[in-house]
């Protein structure tokens, strides 16, 4: 008989942007303005959505249509969700710079944010606990479930790596203790399949076995 635990995978949790160009083309927020191509305009605050703190560079390529507008995130921020609408106030217009004369809006795509494993059809990761050797504290956002399955090629045992978002914050030892407690419960009660309860509501964004 094998005993299992469940690690809940956060489904579209609030999280940070990737520092890269946003995937979707913008629309005008309300009034239709004018676009002028030019060099990128740095330091544009990302306004709205469910998060805060993100900053981007706006650049408009030759052609100067909405499809030519690129918003490249330079500061990742925190707390944004797929589907959020974020705006950039009218800006630019310096010598040689791109310019947009009214506010632009972008809809956040999944590719814009740090990747998460969870989805509506994949809301937890099953972990067999019987061959786990221990839970290794790694950092405040990561812990490893080291197994007793030795990989001779790699020169180490196979392991599960559990990654949580940095917000809401937990700590390195607490993350490991929370996972260990679920293993403890699973091994003490056959068929109970306990779900890990994370202190401070830490959200799992990835679980890998390697």
């Amino acid at each position, binding site marked *: 008989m094998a005993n299992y635990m469940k690690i809940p995978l956060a489904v579209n949790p609030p999280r940070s942007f990737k520092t890269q160009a946003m995937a979707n083309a913008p629309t005008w927020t309300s009034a239709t303005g004018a676009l002028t191509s030019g060099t990128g305009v740095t330091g544009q605050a990302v306004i709205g959505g469910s998060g805060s703190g993100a900053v981007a560079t706006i650049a408009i390529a030759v052609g100067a249509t909405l499809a030519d507008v690129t918003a490249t995130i330079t500061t990742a921020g925190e707390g944004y969700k797929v589907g959020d609408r974020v705006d950039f106030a009218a800006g630019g217009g310096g010598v040689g710079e791109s310019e947009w004369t009214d506010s632009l809006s972008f809809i956040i795509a999944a590719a814009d944010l740090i990747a998460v494993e969870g989805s509506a059809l994949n809301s937890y990761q099953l972990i067999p606990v019987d061959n786990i050797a221990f839970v290794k504290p790694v950092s405040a956002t990561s812990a490893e479930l080291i197994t007793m399955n030795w990989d001779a090629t790699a020169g180490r*045992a196979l392991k599960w790596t559990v990654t949580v978002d940095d917000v809401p914050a937990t*700590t390195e*030892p607490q993350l490991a203790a*929370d996972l260990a407690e679920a293993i403890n419960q699973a091994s003490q009660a056959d068929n109970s399949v306990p779900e890990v309860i994370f202190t401070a509501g830490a959200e799992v964004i990835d679980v890998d076995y390697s």
Partner: protein
Amino acid sequence: MANFIRVPLRGTTSNGSPRYGLVNVSDAYDAEISPASSNEHIRIYSTIPADTTDVIVNIIEYYGGPGNAPVTAQDIVNLKDLIVKANQEPGSNPIFELVGAAVAAPADLEDYEVDDFVQSSITPPL
């Protein structure tokens, strides 16, 4: 079914959240203080092969702190007894505390708590 022993983890919060780590002792057959570890680490040898000459060894690393040597020979005796108990009573997952923790000053208790686990492949002692 796996059998574990639990050990106190250093640095966990004190608001009722879990505070123990655990180590699988299902196939453990020996334990010793790790050589050259300043008596801060315990090796638990398993019967599971890691290659042709080595076995998987799980190592419990105590915080210890500057100049402290928390693990004693009596601790190893107690641990072996607890490994037997854990395997005789599946699901019991007993808690292993170092002897020194019982008489340590509150400020020194963290010396007797675990701050890491390591796994290695080691040739079993003769």
